[in-house]
């Protein structure tokens, strides 16, 4: 039997139930689990015997209040999000423009293909040392690293979108008298938009992975990567948990925004699921 896809609110309720159940279980574990966690030899070596491995909600709350009141968390969020936005914008512009160019012209595709393939299979973080040497410690190397990552993914999305425009639409437009300019604006672009948006969503997730790891390596205050690096150095588990949750929530928020824009841009499509 075919399963109908449930109403949105049903799906939301299920998601909330799943999160709630996990939150309750964690609360119980944090209250009673601490003393059952295995003792590790490195704890003695580093003279840490009172590390909170499973912080309670109370200590998480206290840590959150501290991080907020001291301004550490807000400024870290602002700095990391700022880098994402600038890098994402630069990378998306470059990637989409290049992808459209390669999608429309076989010659440009042939010229660009080796580089795209090369970058596509090179972990962006492997480029970080090179970028640091070229562009210095600081903003440019991180922003450009994100831009590189985003550009490759969106290039492929735009390329496939443009290349995949069904021939019939282009023929119909041509026989209705459309020149190349109009056909690009009114046929190619809207037809490619769903794939471009899908690639933007993937690129956005990738951008967050890239920035946090880049900030871990070149850790400077303030940034979410640095916050995590610092928490790891002490080690302070409540700070880690809050840092991870912050990154997770930011990614989720950005993804929802992307999903919303995607849905708006493709209202005309038949929904099958």
């Amino acid at each position, binding site marked *: 039997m075919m399963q109908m896809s449930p109403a949105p609110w049903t799906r939301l309720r299920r998601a909330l139930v799943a999160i709630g159940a996990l939150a309750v279980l964690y609360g119980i574990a944090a209250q009673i689990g601490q003393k059952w966690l295995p003792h590790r030899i490195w704890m003695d070596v580093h003279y840490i015997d009172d590390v909170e491995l499973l912080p309670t909600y109370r200590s998480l709350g206290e840590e959150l209040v501290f991080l907020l009141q001291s301004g550490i968390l807000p400024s870290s969020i602002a700095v990391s999000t700022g880098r994402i936005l600038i890098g994402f914008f630069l990378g998306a512009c470059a990637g989409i423009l290049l992808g459209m160019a390669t999608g429309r012209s076989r010659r440009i595709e042939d010229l660009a293909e080796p580089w795209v393939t090369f970058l596509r299979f090179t972990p962006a973080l492997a480029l970080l040392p090179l970028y640091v040497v070229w562009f210095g410690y600081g903003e440019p190397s991180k922003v450009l690293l994100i831009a590189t990552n985003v550009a490759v993914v969106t290039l492929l999305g735009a390329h496939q979108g443009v290349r995949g425009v*069904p021939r*019939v*639409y282009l*023929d*119909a*437009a*041509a*026989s*209705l*008298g*459309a*020149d190349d300019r*109009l056909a690009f604006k*009114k*046929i190619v672009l*809207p*037809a490619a*938009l769903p794939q471009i948006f899908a690639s933007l969503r993937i690129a956005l997730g990738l951008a967050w992975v890239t920035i946090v790891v880049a900030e871990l390596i070149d850790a400077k205050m303030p940034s979410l990567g640095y916050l995590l690096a610092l928490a790891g150095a002490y080690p302070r588990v409540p700070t880690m948990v809050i840092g991870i949750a912050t990154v997770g929530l930011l990614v989720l928020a950005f993804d929802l925004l992307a999903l919303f824009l995607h849905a708006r841009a493709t*209202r*005309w*499509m*038949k929904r099958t699921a």
Partner: protein
Amino acid sequence: MMPAGSPRVRLEAVDVGYTYSGQTPTRALEGLNLSVGDREFVALLGPVGCGKTTLLRMFAGFLSPTQGSVLCDGARIDGPSSDKGYVLQENAIFPWMTVRENVEFGLLAKGVEPASRRAVSDELIRLLGLAAFAEAYPKELSSGMSKMVEVVRVLATDPSILLLDEPFGALDAQTRAMMQDELARLWEQRRKTVVFVTHDADEAIYLADRIAVLSPRPGRVTANFPVELPRPRSLETRFSAAFSALKRQVWEAIGQSVASNAPKPSPSSSH
């Protein structure tokens, strides 16, 4: 063979041949001759794969013959233009545009002012009885209506020639009959030169002034039948004796053209 009294020839195919290149080159058309008079409704009737679409794409300006020539008003056709309204066999309604934007597209391409575009689209959409769907996306239309929107989309720029490639091929029999009536009504109102490709003899007889029967591949015109049924045509037409008699003649011609194209000792044919 032209019906008597046709003032002038609009479209002409002279000794046209077309071979699709590839690993096994396919001769789609060979030695095909056809002329279509001004405001004449010609149905191209032939089996699937006989090159009907190939010929229509030549008239539309998307293909050049590998032999012979294809002419419009005596001049070689060298590309698509909005004076030859072409409705493709596939669904080519633009799904990201509303019904109105679809209908207005040809006018937009011509640089017509929004107000004038709207006047034209209003009229055409009303003609289809789709006023309530003017601002809707095509996903809300039935496949028959969506095809009719494609037909009026090419009518918007008022082309003098209409090229229709099995527009109702994918529809069920009932919807098909309704759409045929719709098209006949539109054509009565705005007489155009029409080339209508179909593999359905009933559809050809019901709509056309003349039927050109094509042989199986390589396609050529093997018979022409003027359809002298009174217009406007109706359900009465479909069940009239004249209709049945013509249908019988057409079917016999189809049978002969299939037999004439049965495997021959030599691939070259002369005319």
